């Protein structure tokens, strides 16, 4: 709710209550005033009109010596009655005269004369006369009355007035009060709304707009607010703050760039020797070794692999946390990708005597659009984790799309559950399971190894993909991690499995004797890469810097170049650019970058320099094969040429 609406929602009830109370008070005051006035008029009518009419005639009779002349007295009393009748028509009040001694009504302007009960009446002296007045109920009707005695004629004179008119008048006052109150509330609300808009909301909106610009641009802003109040002061503060933010952002960006550069360097510097270790271990395992030597070489390779995993995790987390992790959306066969993963991870599961089961729903003949790399990493992390903590059990991967896919691309939700029958997680540790460097038990690290970053990375990747990871677990029974992600999906006619089979077939049919120029300054890495390429039946020629590589390419006879990025004399980037500047077909020779830098944006910059693909160190035979396979068709053309 907007602040103006909130203020009005608060103000209007307060105003309504305030105005209603004021109105009620005004009504009560008016009520008392009107009643007072009515009683005043009634008693004045009695004393100044009725009793004067009577008294005047009596005085006249006395002055004329006719007081005791019955005919005159009666005549004048009749005159009084006639005058009261006229007065009744003029004032709409009723008059009654009763004989006190006989207790009989001698005159009344009403058809049914009823003398009101004066027991509860108020007694007052008005114009030297004692008058009783009040309200009474006569024949189910409320009346106001005033009465007084006229002793000389032994009369009790009463003036009556229906309370209907008074009540009607009071009702009118009540209505008017209500209407005026409502009108006042509306007017005051409008005025307050306008005042609030001008003096509060509008400045706040300007400040908010400025804050939004700051959030987006991180630039210094100028707020058009000339008020000299708190909001004006706030605007000046925001302006000052935006200036500081601009500075801080610039500094942070600089620091981030420094961090990125550092990570890139570290990535390269760590991966390069690690690449050598892994490659050499692999090569070593392919030689004639005693059992003991084979075990050592195998352990060496495993240790290097674990170290590579740790480094990858740390780098991945760094990338995510620095905001450098981008969503690279592609369309792919999710079902096939998961099947591949099951196959890939099945070896680990078997080693742990664990069965890996995969089930899917709404996934057949469906192309999913998402970041395949991140999805794969999430699943690998979760499944690897499940396998690690499940001994002689079952890890079940269930994948489904929430909505059945249509022929056209539509938004969908991917749900993948990884359920294991492992050791489970203590309830009090569940909430920390996704924290970095956290495992359910420190002893786990000792027993099962790992950095404790896998789940944290998986969760953050899932969030980047618009989803999340939830976990339920029971100690001794196992855990279930459920990944959700926003994806797009569509139904495809062509079987993606067929497509994958074709691709595998293509990979399998990688031609032999491809002439590969390997440009690598690190001798160990060069040995490893050359050995792996030779496993792929490639004819490898090695140079140790970019200049030599470019020169060799210019000489001709090279089908593809594996170009290390960081090399002395001339780096891989410059060498690639030089190759692309060669004449004719030589400029089109595929160049595959070899780099220990894991950051994607660096890969992009390499490709912008002319490289066709990037293979990240430590290189594996699979990665080299996949990269060559991507270029296989082109290569085939080159070969044909």
């Amino acid at each position, binding site marked *: 709710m907007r602040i103006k609406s909130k203020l009005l929602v608060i103000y209007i009830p307060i105003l309504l209550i305030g105005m209603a109370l004021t109105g009620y008070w005004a009504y009560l005051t008016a009520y008392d005033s009107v009643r007072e006035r009515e009683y005043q008029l009634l008693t004045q009518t009695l004393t100044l009109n009725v009793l004067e009419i009577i008294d*005047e*005639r009596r005085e*006249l009779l006395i*002055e*004329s*010596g*006719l007081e005791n*002349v019955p*005919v*005159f007295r*009666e*005549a*004048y009393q*009749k*005159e009084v009655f006639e005058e009261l009748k006229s007065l009744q028509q003029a004032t709409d009040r009723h008059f009654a005269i009763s004989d006190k001694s006989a207790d009989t009504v001698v005159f009344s302007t009403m058809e049914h004369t009823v003398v009101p009960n004066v027991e509860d009446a108020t007694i007052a002296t008005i114009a030297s006369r004692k008058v009783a007045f009040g309200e009474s109920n006569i024949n189910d009707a409320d009346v106001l009355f005033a009465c007084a005695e006229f002793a000389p004629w032994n009369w009790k004179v009463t003036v009556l007035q229906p309370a209907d008119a008074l009540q009607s008048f009071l009702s009118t006052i009540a209505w008017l009060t209500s209407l005026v109150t409502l009108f006042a509330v509306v007017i005051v609300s409008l005025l307050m709304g306008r005042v609030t808009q001008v003096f509060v909301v509008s400045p706040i909106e300007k400040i908010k707009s400025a804050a939004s610009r700051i959030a987006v641009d991180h630039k210094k802003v100028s707020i058009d607010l000339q008020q000299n109040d708190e909001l004006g002061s706030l605007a000046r503060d925001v302006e000052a703050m935006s200036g500081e933010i601009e500075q801080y952002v610039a500094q942070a960006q600089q620091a981030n760039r420094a961090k990125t550069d550092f990570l890139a360097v570290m990535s390269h510097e760590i991966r390069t020797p690690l690449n050598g270790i892994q490659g050499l271990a692999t090569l070593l395992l392919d030689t004639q070794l005693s059992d003991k030597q084979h075990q050592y070489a195998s352990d060496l390779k495993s240790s290097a692999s674990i170290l590579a995993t740790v480094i990858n995790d740390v780098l991945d987390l760094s990338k995510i946390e620095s905001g450098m992790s981008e969503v690279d959306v592609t369309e792919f066969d999710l079902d096939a990708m998961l099947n591949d993963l099951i196959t890939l991870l099945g070896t680990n599961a078997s080693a742990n005597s664990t069965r890996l089961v995969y089930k899917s729903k709404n996934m057949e003949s469906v192309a999913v659009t998402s970041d395949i790399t991140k999805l794969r990493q999430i699943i690998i992390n979760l499944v690897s984790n499940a396998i690690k903590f499940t001994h002689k059990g079952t890890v079940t991967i269930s994948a489904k799309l929430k909505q059945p896919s249509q022929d056209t691309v539509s938004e969908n939700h991917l749900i993948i559950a990884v359920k294991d029958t492992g050791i489970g997680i203590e309830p009090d540790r569940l909430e920390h399971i996704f924290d970095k460097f956290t495992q359910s038990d420190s002893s786990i690290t000792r027993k099962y190894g790992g950095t404790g970053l896998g789940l944290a990375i998986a969760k953050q990747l899932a969030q980047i993909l618009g989803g999340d990871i939830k976990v339920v677990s029971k100690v001794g029974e196992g855990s279930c991690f459920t990944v959700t992600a926003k994806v797009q999906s569509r139904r495809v006619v062509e079987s993606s499995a067929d497509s994958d089979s074709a691709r595998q077939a293509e990979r399998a049919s990688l031609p032999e004797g491809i002439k590969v120029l390997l440009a690598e300054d690190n001798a160990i890495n060069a040995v490893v890469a050359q050995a792996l390429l030779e496993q792929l039946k490639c004819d490898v020629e090695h140079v140790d810097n970019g200049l030599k590589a470019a020169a060799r390419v210019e000489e001709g006879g090279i089908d593809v170049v594996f170009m290390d990025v960081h090399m002395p004399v001339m780096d891989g980037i410059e060498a690639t650019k030089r190759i692309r500047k060669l004449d004719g077909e030589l400029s089109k020779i595929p160049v595959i970058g070899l780099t220990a830098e894991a950051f994607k944006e660096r890969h992009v910059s390499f490709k912008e320099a002319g490289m066709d693909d990037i293979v990240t160190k430590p290189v594996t035979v699979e990665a080299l094969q996949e990269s060559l396979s991507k270029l296989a068709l082109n290569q085939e053309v080159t070969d044909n040429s």
Partner: protein
Amino acid sequence: MTKVWFSLLLALSSLMWGASAAFAKETLDLIVLETLPVPIVADSRTEFEKELARIMPDHEINVTSYNAEGSEVRAKEILTELAQNPAPDLIVSVATLATRALNASEEFVDVPKLFMAVSAPVEEGIVSAIGAVSERNMTGESHVLDAKVKLDMLEGVLRASKPSSLFTIGLVHSTYPSSSNLVNQLLALNDDYENINLVAVSTPYIEGDDGLVEMTDSIINSLQQKTNELDGYWLSSGPLAESNGLVTKVKEATGLLPLFAESISSVKEGALLGVVSEPASIGKSAARKAKLILEKKSARDIPVDKMDTYTVAVNVSTAIKLQLPIPSNYLKLSKKHVYQ
């Protein structure tokens, strides 16, 4: 030396005479012609003279009064005689006959004339209507209340008693002009009043004091003959109403009481109700008009109208006797003219 003293004495005398002449009051000659010296006439004249002297203190007012002895003929004779004398500054006529003669006189057309105590100036041909001016250099006021108002008042009294039948009222009058005029007006209006039945009881007007006695006897005889028909009588204006002891005599002779009278004295004697102009009011009002004329405002420019001050008088003894309670508003109007 003697011549010198004589010359000085002569000069001093001349100076004193001149000074006294310079401070002497202007003398105004007025002639008052009254119809006959009945109380209303005589009293009105007296009040007139007193008021005029009071409001014109800077003038020496010489008033010469003449009595027409109730005779129009005599009034004309007096006027003829007066025509032989230098014209006065103002001629004032009192009552109808003297006024009629003065208005008809050709000798005094150019002399400003003022009348008072005339009940019907329109009927007398002085003006065409109340509020109009006279072409014969005469002005004045009618001292009598409108006949309809009088009947309304009497009707009010009778209605208050809630009578079961009509009140038959004898209109006692003479053929004296103002008297008969009033009766004619009353009779003309009679049909408009549900409680009143008016019956004319008339006697010929006879001039002179003897005539007044004759008229009284005559009217008593007429009333005696109609006693059984009448519930009371109305004493019309004119000389007959001014007859001394008329009410008493009628009461003694017939037992009838007057219900309405045109003079305070009649109410004092027993008339139930009277609405009259008192002589003091008549005289004073006429004096104010006379002052205007004597201060050179033409009588031709002063309209003839009715007096604006009347006196209500009631007799409560009569009311009690007749069991006719007088309404309180009349009693209140009567103030000091409530008689027992």
